[in-house]
C-alpha cells in the first residue's frame, strides 16, 4: 500500500506523536502550575490512541510499501503496550519519586516511546525493526536516568546506554549480513530466500541469527545480554522499572517473533536448540540470582529475567501453540507483575523502604495490600488456581507437545526455585512482626487500581475463555 493510503491505518501512531507534542506544549504553558494536568492529558492521549487502534481494527494490511504490517498480532501488542503505559502514568502520579518540575518531559517521553514500541510490534522490514528498536532504547535511557539527583539512577542510565549501544550495533551487523546475503530488507522476502542460502552457507546464517538475537535478547533481557537489567531496574524510578519489565519486554517479544517466526523459521540452521538452551539459562540465572536479593525491586528485576526465560520457551518452539502461549502469558504477566510493582510503589511511598525488611508485618499495617501482594507473588510462582498457573500451563503444554521434555523439566524446577524467593516476601509480610505498628492508609484510587490487578490475576486462573478464544484464532490470519 502506498504512503497516502497508508495514513488512514496509521492514525494510532499519529495520535501518539500529536499528544507527545501537546504534552510538552501544555507543560510549557502551565509551567509549575499543574503537574497532574500533564498526566491527565497523557492518559487522554493514550485513550485516543487505544480507540484509534480498535477502530483501525484487525485488518491485514501492509503499509508504506511493505514497511509496516497491521494485523491482529500488532493490534494485540499495541493494546498491551497502551495499557502498560497508562498504568505507568498512574503509577508515576501515585509515586512521589519524580521531581514535579520535570514531569512534562517525563510524560512526553512515556508517550513517545509508544511510537517506537508500536513500530516494533508491527515492523515488516528490518530497517523499521532496527529504527524502532533504537527509538525505544534511546527513550528508555532517558527514562531510566530520570532521577537526576540520584547517582544510582544516573549509573543505571549509563549502563543501559553502553550495553544498548553494543547490543544494537551487533544486531545491525547481523542485519547487514542478512541483507548482504538476500539483497532485501523485507522480513517476509528474507524468510523466503534464507532457507536456500542457509543450505549452502549455514555458518553465515547462524552467525547473523546470533548477532540479531543480541539486539532482541538485550531488549527482553535474556542471558547473556541481561547484565544491564538488574542495575537499571534498581536505579530507575519504580514506575519506569515496571514499564521496562512489562511494555519493553512485550515489545521485544513482538519484534523477536516477527523476525524469527518469518525470517529464520524455515532455515535448516539449528538455532532453535541454541535458543532453547538460552531460554533454560535465562530462567535459571534469573531465579538463582534472585534468591539472595534483599531489595524487592532488584528481586523483581531478576524475577522478570526469569519470566523472560519462560516466555522464550514459547518462541523457540516456532509453533502456533507456542506463540499463542507467549501472548497469553504476556497478558497474565502484565497484570501480576504490574500489580507487584504497584505494591512496591505503595510500600516505598508509605514505609520508605524498598528492602524486604520494610515489608515486615505488612499484614497488620495494610492487610489488603499484603493480601494482594501474596496473590501476585503466588501467581508469579505459578500456583493454581491463580492466573500465573494458567500462563505457565499453556507454555509448558506447548513445550511438551514439541517433545522438549528437558526444557519443560528445567522450567518447572525453576518454578520451585522461584517459590523460595517470592515466599521470602510473603514471610516478611505475614510471619514477621513489624517494628512499626502504625497502620498505613492509602487512597481509594490506589486501592481500586490494586483491585484492578488482583481481579484478573485470580479470574484468569479459573476462567480460561480468553485462552479458548486465542487458541481458536487461525494463526495465518492473525500474523499476516
Amino acid at each position, binding site marked *: 500500500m502506498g504512503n497516502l493510503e497508508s495514513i488512514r491505518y496509521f492514525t494510532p501512531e499519529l495520535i501518539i506523536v500529536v499528544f507527545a507534542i501537546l504534552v510538552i506544549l501544555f507543560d510549557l504553558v502551565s509551567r509549575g502550575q499543574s503537574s497532574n494536568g500533564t498526566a491527565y492529558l497523557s492518559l487522554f492521549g493514550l485513550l485516543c490512541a487505544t480507540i484509534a487502534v480498535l477502530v483501525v481494527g484487525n485488518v491485514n494490511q501492509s503499509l508504506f510499501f511493505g514497511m509496516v504490517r497491521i494485523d491482529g498480532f500488532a493490534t494485540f501488542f499495541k493494546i498491551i503496550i497502551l495499557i502498560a503505559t497508562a498504568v505507568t502514568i498512574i503509577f508515576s502520579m501515585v509515586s512521589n519519586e519524580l521531581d514535579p518540575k520535570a514531569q512534562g518531559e517525563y510524560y512526553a517521553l512515556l508517550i513517545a516511546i509508544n511510537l517506537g514500541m508500536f513500530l516494533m510490534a508491527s515492523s515488516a522490514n528490518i530497517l523499521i525493526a532496527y529504527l524502532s528498536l533504537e527509538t525505544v532504547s534511546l527513550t528508555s535511557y532517558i527514562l531510566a536516568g530520570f532521577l537526576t539527583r540520584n547517582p544510582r539512577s544516573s549509573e543505571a542510565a549509563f549502563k543501559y546506554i553502553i550495553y544498548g549501544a553494543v547490543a544494537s550495533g551487533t544486531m545491525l551487523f547481523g542485519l547487514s549480513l542478512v541483507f548482504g546475503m538476500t539483497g532485501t530488507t523485507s522480513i517476509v522476502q528474507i524468510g523466503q530466500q534464507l532457507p536456500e542460502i542457509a543450505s549452502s552457507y549455514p555458518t553465515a546464517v547462524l552467525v547473523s541469527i546470533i548477532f540479531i538475537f543480541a539486539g532482541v535478547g538485550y531488549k527482553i533481557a535474556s542471558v547473556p545480554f541481561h547484565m544491564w537489567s538488574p542495575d537499571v531496574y534498581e536505579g530507575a524510578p519504580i514506575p519506569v522499572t515496571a514499564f521496562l519489565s512489562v511494555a519493553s519486554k512485550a515489545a521485544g517479544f513482538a519484534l523477536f517473533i516477527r523476525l524469527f517466526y518469518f525470517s529464520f523459521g524455515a532455515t535448516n540452521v539449528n538455532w532453535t536448540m541454541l535458543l532453547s538452551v538460552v531460554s533454560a539459562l535465562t530462567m535459571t540465572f534469573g531465579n538463582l540470582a534472585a534468591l539472595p536479593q534483599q531489595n524487592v525491586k532488584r528481586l523483581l528485576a531478576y524475577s522478570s529475567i526469569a519470566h523472560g526465560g519462560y516466555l522464550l520457551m514459547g518462541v523457540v518452539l516456532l509453533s502456533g501453540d507456542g506463540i499463542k502461549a507467549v501472548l497469553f502469558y504476556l497478558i497474565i504477566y502484565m497484570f501480576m507483575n504490574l500489580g507487584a510493582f504497584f505494591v512496591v510503589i505503595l510500600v516505598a511511598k508509605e514505609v520508605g523502604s524498598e528492602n524486604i525488611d520494610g515489608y515486615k508485618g505488612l499484614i497488620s499495617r495494610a492487610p489488603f495490600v499484603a493480601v494482594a501482594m501474596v496473590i501476585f507473588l*503466588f501467581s508469579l510462582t505459578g*500456583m*493454581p*488456581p491463580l492466573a500465573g*498457573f494458567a500462563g505457565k*500451563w*499453556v507454555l*509448558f*503444554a506447548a513445550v*511438551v*507437545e514439541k517433545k522438549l*521434555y528437558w526444557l*519443560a*523439566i528445567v522450567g*518447572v*524446577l525453576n*518454578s*520451585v526455585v522461584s*517459590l*523460595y524467593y517470592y*515466599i521470602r516476601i510473603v*514471610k516478611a509480610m*505475614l*510471619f514477621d512482626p513489624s517494628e512499626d505498628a502504625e497502620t498505613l492508609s492509602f487512597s481509594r484510587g490506589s486501592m481500586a487500581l490494586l483491585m484492578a490487578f488482583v481481579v484478573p490475576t485470580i479470574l484468569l486462573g479459573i476462567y*480460561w475463555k480468553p*485462552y*479458548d478464544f*486465542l*487458541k*481458536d484464532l487461525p494463526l495465518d490470519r492473525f500474523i499476516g
Partner: protein
Amino acid sequence: MLLTSMIFIPLVGAIIVLLVPRDREDAAKWIAFLVTLIPLFLAVLLYFQYDPTSVEIQEVVETSWIKAFNIRYHTGVDGLSVTLILLTALLGPICVGASWKIEKGIKVYLSLFLLLETGMIGFFCALDLFLFYVFFELTLLPMYFLIGVWGGPRREYAAIKFFLYTLFGSVLMLIAMIAVYLNSSVDPGLRTFDIPTLISLAQTSGHALADPTFQIWAFLGFFIGFAVKVPIFPFHTWLPDAHVEAPTAISVVLAAILLKMGTYGLVRINFAMLPAGMDFFTNGLGRWGNALAILGVVNIIYGSLCALAQTDFKKLVAYSSIGHMGFVILGLAARNEAGVTGAILQMLNHGVISAMLFLLVGVVYDRAHHRDINGFGGLGAKMPIYTGITTLAFMASLGLPGLSGFVGEALSLLGAYSKFQLLTILSTIGIVVGAAYFLWTLQRVFLGDLNPKYEAIEEINMREIATLIPLGVLTIVLGIWPHFAIEMFRNSVVGLPLQ
C-alpha cells in the same frame, strides 16, 4: 450435586467466617463448626446413597471447563473415594473442635482450614486429571500459612520446607500429566484429561498411552509427586518438621488426610492408569526385584527405628506415621487383592489412629507446654481417662488384634507374603519396633512415680474427649468388623489391574 456442594460449601464457609466482625470472633468458631458439619452430613448421606455392589462411578457431575484443552469439571466417586471423603468430612468438625483454644487470628485460621477442606474433598472427587491437580495444589497454600503462622518456634522453616518439597514433586507430576494428555490421542481435538477414559485407553494395547517406555516415565513423574506427599523415603524429611511445628489440628489433617492424598494418587493414577509402569517398578528391575516393595519396607523399618530414637512425643508420632505408611506401599506393591485391600484399609486406619495420636499429644502439650517424653512420668495417676484413651490409641497403632491397626497391616502382610517372602519377613521388624516404642513411651509418660511438676495437671476435658470419641469408636468398630469398610471399596480394588 451432592459432591459439588460438599466441595464448595467449605469454600463459602471460608468467606463467611472472614466476614464475621472482629469483636464477635467466638461466633466464627461456631460458624466454622456448623459449616464443617454440613459436609459430614452430606458424606453420611453419600455413604447411604452409594451402592457398593455396583462397579460404576457414582454421583457423576460433568461440565465443560476449559475448552482449549478439553478440560472438564468432572467429579464422581467410587468406594475408595467415598471411604476417604468420609474420613475427611469426619475430621472437619473434630479439627475445628481441637482448634478452639487458638486466639491469634482465629478467623483467618478457620477460613484457611475450610479452604483446605475444599481442596481435600475436591481432590478425592476429581475425575479429571487437571482438576485433580488443581485440588492437589489447592491444599498447599492454606497448609503453608497454617503451619507458618500458627505453628511452633521453627514454623517458618517447617512451612517452607513442606511447601518446597511438595511443589517439587507436583511440578514433575505436572509434566507427566501434560505428557499423558498429549499422548491420549493423535488428534488434538480428541485429547482428554478424563481419568476413567485415560485408564481404559492405557489398557488398550497398541495405544500410545499403553507403550511401556512411556508408562515408565509417566509413572516416575507421578510417583515422585505422590511419594513426597506419602512420604516415601527419601522424600520424607519435610514430614517430621512440619508435624512438630504445626498446631495440633493441622498435624491431625496432615497425618490423616494429606498423606492419604499421596497414596490415593498412587492407587488412582500409578496403579490404575499406568499398569505397565507399575509392572516395571514391581518386577521389571532385574535383581532389584520389587522396587516399590523395597521402598515400602525401608519406610517401615526406617520410620520405626527413627520413632524409637525420639524423645519428642510429636516427632515420635510423626516417624511412626512414616513407618505405618510403609505398609500401604507394601500392600500396593503386592498387587493382589489381599495386599491392596490391606493397603486401603491401612490408609483409613492410619487416618483414624494418627488423628487420635496427634490430638492426644496436643492435649498434654496444652497442659505441660512441652513434649519431652522423658519429662513426664506417672501421669496415669492424675489423668486416668487420658491415659485410657492414649493406651487405646497406642494399642491400635502398634497393631493389637481386635483394634483397627491390626487388620490393615495383617492384610497387607498377607498379600505381600504371597509375592515376596523375605521382604515381608523383614518388614515385621517394624511391627516389633513399633510395639517397643509405644510401650516404652507409655511407660515413661504414664507409669512410674508422678513427676512432682505435674501434681496439679488437669484431666482431659469434655471438649477434648468429644473430639476423640468418634475416632476411638471407629478404631474399635473397624478392628472388630472391618468388613463394613472393606465392602465399601471392594469393587474399587477388584477393578484395579491386579496380578
